[in-house]
């Protein structure tokens, strides 16, 4: 079973987002960095919900999903 907890999304700092952006070679203005930080925290709050769900290990991802 996978049942993973993340840090609280509100704890993600601006500096962490800036470091992640550098890893992607993104150069963001001060305003863009602040907005990106807000957006990343929102994604993280959704990710928290997803990661907290206990999925059986036999369930594989469906990146090339076709519903038939």
């Amino acid at each position, binding site marked *: 079973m996978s049942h993973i907890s993340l840090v609280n999304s509100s704890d993600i700092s601006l500096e962490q*987002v800036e470091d992640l952006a550098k890893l992607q070679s993104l150069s963001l203005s001060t305003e863009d960095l602040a907005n990106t930080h807000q957006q990343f925290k929102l*994604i993280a709050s959704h990710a928290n919900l997803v990661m907290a769900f206990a999925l059986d290990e036999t369930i594989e991802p469906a990146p090339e999903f076709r*519903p038939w």
Partner: protein
Amino acid sequence: MVDETSHAIEIAAAIRTGSVSALEVTKQALARVNSLDQHYNSFTAVTADRALKEAAAIDALKQQGATLPPLAGVPYAVKNLFDVQDLITLAGSKINASNAPASNDAALVKAMQKSGAIMLGALNMDEYAYGFTTENHHYGATYNPHDVTRSAGGSSGGSAAAVAAGLVPLALGSDTNGSVRVPSSMCGLFGLKPTYGALNLDGMFPFVHSFDHAGLFARSSLDLALTFDLLQSTSSSCLGQMGDGVAGLRIARAGGYFEQCDAQAQSAVALVAEALQASSTIHLPEVARARSSAYVITASEGGNRHLQRLQSRAQDFDPLTRPRLAAGTLVPAAWYIQAQRFRAWFYQQVMQIFDHVDIIIAPATPCCAQKIGQETMTIQGVTMPVRPNMGMFTQPISFIGLPVVAVPIQKVGGMPIAVQIIAPPKREDLVLRVAAYLERSGVCTAPVVRN
């Protein structure tokens, strides 16, 4: 008599019988776009020369006594992420404006042309389809024909506004997380998001590979059915089943998560449920988590798609889009993979529910169209941002690729809202059949509106 209120099927029939020519219909439609679209800002390009040539070709076929194709002479337009030969495929962006014009039509544009439809132009959208409001920084907001101070919805807002205002009877759009169903709700239209993979996406600018669908807008369910039949790659027909009614169908409304909407949305669902005699309620499991998974996958795939552009031309993005895409590039692989695994789980769970019901009904949006520029809305006492949350009921459904028709409920003196009619994969015949029943019974209508 053909006018701006005519449905596609009626226009094609009038041209077939010779009561009006394709050229007359096309000139009237172009004149309407020219004189009225200043109020709605739905078109970003008008292809008048192409339209007149295509119409002349239909009239020539008619004069030769040839059998006309099913949509002969019917004007339509497409969201500007579809390739249209000799037009730049903007996808709502400034960055794409420096690209070369498309050298060919998208597959669905080709299919529309083969069916005899007349291309009038390209329609406004949220930048790179990432939004639910069509408040485009580069090309302006699209205004809702029911109330021009309000959003037309998005991301296919131009498509919805053009059909609602009677500029065209049909428009093509795309739906990744709700971009056909949300603007259908905002503008009071019938909108079809078919099963994932049912329509060919070749020549459409992509957003999120896992969820991208093409879709249709119309003011009648029959127009949706005919057009879907013509665009899909199989030989099955939905149009022929449109008169079958709903007797024998097991229809239930979605409870729980889907009840977090305002009174108007609740009333719309209740009205549809009553008309369909749907007295039972089902609960899809873990819907909030499905929506969250869709959110994570969208952010990650969307961000990755635009990473190079974010690295080289960040300042040329719409300020509403830039931070969302930038944040998406930072999503850890573990979040993305878990969301895709959850998707497989959720699909299995919902398919088990379809062992017991044929149709699920749910609100399309938590409320009607909000004011352009409005940042927040309050639903059942909870204040939330407008832009990401207009799709809270559509995202969990496109997450697993189910076919949906959004059916409109009009409100006298007020804004419309839509209800989702949802079926198992590849059962567009069922959702269209139910939509046709609701239209025949007068519950759902989509009149031309120009307020």
